[in-house]
């Protein structure tokens, strides 16, 4: 049993319950916080990507718009030059006259003398007055607007001088402008190169310090020699709709699209307020020449690509510099560096709101956590008290139960011991009984054996009785025969007696006669006497025989009578003996059955003895089990003690120990 437990069950339940209740909330809070952080991070990343894509898209869209506009302008200028060409053809075409004319060309050391360039065979003159119409150029611009110029070839390099135009500067038509074969940077002038190649040039040109979009059509004389150019142009400012679209584009809250040229001049500035201003040397808060970096990055891009720069910028009123992200694209045909910029904090508004919502949610969860903790404390306090109370009740019942079990087990042990002793005595008695039954069984078999001997004797008895009866019958028959013979013998004796009597009479007669005969009759008389004597003796013998015979008859009658008695007695003997035999046989069967039954009882007694032995063993086991039960009851008491200690803490240990001491002592 543990004795080191200091906290009561109530305290442990309280701690565990609160921990179990609050821990999930803490985990949930941690998970939500983590999810919020991840969500904010994802939102920031996604917003950054979206903003980048948006800026990128805007830059690309602007480039696309420029390309579309440029294509439109090209088409329009194609139309312009076609109209101008038709107008020129309508006027009779261009040709060189025979008379020369001198042109004062700015930047040239001496005037340039050239043959007159005729329009429809007429020289338009060196008209610088806008009020005086110049054929062709005024005709064209009257129809289409813009500018129209007529250039005349100066030399073999194809350099040109403007000989007729409606471009005006300071109220004068600008004549004598020189178009060199090479640009200031030494590269071939594309206008001249195209004319020498016999091709029309459509592109961007600088006219009076203004960038224009122009188309130049080569002019040939009748011998197909290049004699000049027919040019039409419109100012960039004529691309009003594109400009308006760029100005009206909103990027985030304060972002905008701007256009620079590669020299750092604003072409389209925010609100158009700084158009034309050169911001080449502009620096950010960190001193970085970010405009130069932007122009370099933009010019390094390929068509369809954008570049990105970031810099910190502080607008008036801003407490701190803000990071600005600019997507850059370069539209080479116009030398436009298109920048689309916005402050990072503006397109990060959504993640900020998300973070704010997450923080608000966290605060709510913390409030809920606090409330749940309080509720949990209350609930587990109530539950631990209720459970402790119930457990104490159960412990009390267990304690009482263990005491009862201990008492009952002691009784069972005592009873088991008594049963075992009784079973032992019973087993001894059964052994004696079994011995007795075995003896009885032996006796029974002996009786059966003896009676089976009687059965054999009975057979012999019947045989002898039969033979005796037969003898009696024969004897009776013989006696009867003797009796019958005695009668015959009496008759014979009577006949002999009668013969003797007659013989005696005859002897007497003979004697008489002999006497009468005297001597002669003496002999006869002797014979007669002898005969009479014989007759007398015969009669005597007959009488004696009769007497004997009568005696015999009486004896035979007595024998017959005796045999009759014997007969009747023997008949009774036979009947009695055979009936006795029948009964002896029944006794034999009964003895056999009794012996068998005794054998069965003996077997049953053996089985009973085994049962009694088993009962004795079981009783011993019951006693042992009762001892074990008693031990378990004491263990239960110990567990109750521990339970009380667990429930009530160290304070309950002493009281439980005192209660446990009331249990019956173990054997």
């Amino acid at each position, binding site marked *: 049993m543990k004795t080191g437990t200091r906290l009561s069950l109530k305290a442990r339940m309280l701690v565990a319950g609160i921990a179990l209740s609050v821990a999930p909330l803490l985990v949930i809070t941690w998970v939500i916080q983590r999810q919020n952080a991840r969500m904010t991070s994802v939102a920031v990343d996604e917003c950054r990507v979206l903003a980048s894509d948006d800026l990128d898209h805007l830059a690309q869209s602007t480039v696309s718009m420029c390309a579309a506009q440029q294509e439109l302008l090209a088409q329009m200028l194609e139309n312009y030059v076609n109209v101008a060409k038709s107008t020129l053809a309508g006027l009779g075409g261009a040709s060189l006259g025979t008379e020369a004319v001198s042109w004062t060309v700015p930047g040239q050391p001496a005037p340039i003398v050239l043959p007159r360039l005729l329009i429809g065979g007429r020289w338009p003159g060196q008209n610088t007055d806008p009020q005086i119409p110049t054929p062709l150029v005024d005709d064209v611009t009257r129809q289409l607007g813009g500018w129209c110029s007529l250039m005349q070839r100066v030399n073999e390099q194809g350099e040109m001088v403007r000989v007729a135009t409606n471009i005006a500067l300071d109220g004068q038509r600008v004549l004598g402008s020189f178009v060199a074969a090479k640009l200031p940077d030494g590269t071939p002038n594309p206008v001249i190169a195209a004319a020498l190649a016999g091709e029309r040039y459509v592109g961007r040109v600088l006219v009076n310090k203004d960038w224009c979009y122009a188309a130049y059509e080569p002019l040939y004389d009748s011998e197909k020699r290049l004699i000049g150019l027919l040019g039409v142009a419109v100012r960039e400012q004529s691309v009003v709709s594109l400009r308006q679209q760029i100005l009206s584009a909103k990027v985030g809250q304060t972002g905008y699209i701007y256009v620079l040229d590669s020299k750092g001049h604003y072409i389209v500035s925010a609100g158009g307020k700084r158009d034309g201003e050169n911001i080449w040397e502009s620096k950010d808060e960190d001193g970085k020449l970010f405009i130069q970096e932007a122009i370099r990055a933009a010019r390094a891009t390929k068509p369809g690509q954008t570049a990105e720069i970031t810099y910190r910028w502080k607008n008036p009123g801003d407490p701190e510099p803000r990071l600005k992200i600019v997507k850059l694209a370069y539209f080479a045909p116009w030398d436009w560096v298109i920048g689309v910029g916005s402050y990072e904090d503006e397109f990060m508004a959504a993640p900020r709101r998300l973070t704010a919502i997450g923080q608000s949610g966290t605060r709510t969860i913390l409030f809920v956590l606090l409330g749940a903790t309080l509720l949990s404390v209350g609930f587990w306090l109530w539950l631990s008290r209720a459970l402790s109370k119930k457990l104490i009740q159960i412990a009390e019942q267990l304690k009482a139960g263990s005491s009862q079990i201990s008492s009952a087990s002691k009784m069972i042990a005592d009873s088991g011991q008594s049963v075992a002793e009784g079973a032992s005595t019973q087993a001894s008695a059964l052994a004696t009984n079994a011995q007795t039954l075995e003896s009885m069984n032996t006796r029974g078999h002996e009786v059966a054996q003896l009676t089976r001997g009687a059965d054999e004797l009975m*057979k012999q008895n019947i*045989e002898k*009785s*039969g033979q005796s009866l037969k003898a009696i*019958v024969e004897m*009776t028959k013989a006696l009867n025969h003797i009796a019958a013979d005695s009668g015959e013998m009496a008759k014979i004796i009577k006949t002999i007696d009668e013969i003797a009597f007659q013989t005696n009479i005859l002897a007497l007669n003979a004697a008489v006669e002999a006497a009468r005969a005297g001597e002669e009759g003496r002999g006869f008389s002797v014979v007669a006497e002898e005969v009479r004597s014989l007759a007398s003796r015969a009669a005597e013998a007959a009488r004696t025989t009769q007497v004997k015979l009568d005696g015999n008859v009486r004896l035979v009658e007595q024998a017959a009578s005796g045999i009759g008695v014997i*007969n009747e007695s023997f008949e009774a003997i036979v*009947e009695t003996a055979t009936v006795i*035999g029948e009964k002896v046989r029944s006794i034999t069967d009964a003895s056999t059955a009794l012996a068998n039954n005794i054998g069965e009882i003996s077997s049953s007694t053996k089985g009973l003895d085994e049962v009694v032995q088993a009962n004795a063993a079981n009783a011993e086991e019951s006693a042992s089990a009762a001892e074990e039960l008693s031990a378990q009851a004491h263990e239960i008491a110990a567990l109750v003690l521990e339970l009380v200690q667990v429930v009530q803490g160290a304070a309950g240990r002493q009281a439980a120990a005192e209660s446990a001491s009331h249990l019956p002592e173990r054997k």
Partner: protein
Amino acid sequence: MNISITQENGTVLVTLQGEIDECGAEEIKTQFREVAQRAPHAVAVDFAGVSHIGSAGIGKLLVFYKDLAMRGASLSLIRVPPLLYQLFCEMKLDTIFAITAHTGAPQANHAREQTPSLSP
């Protein structure tokens, strides 16, 4: 135990059926006496229907034989089942009166005796 008696001229036929135990022996004793009083010349007892005969029954047979013999009549046992025939021969009854064994199949309902015995 069934006993039937028929007489033709001076010869009486006594037909027995069933088991002749102690009670049956008393029954045949009575019937035998009646038959003896008829002073027959000869009596034949048909044992074909007898499945068992005890010593008491045999005793009655012996007495019946004596009664008849005293009157000069003869007794014969006819159609005696083999087991009974063997039993009678063991007792040498065949030397006292004529015994004829039954050669036919024994009746099914009277065939429980397995060994020659006087037992019921």
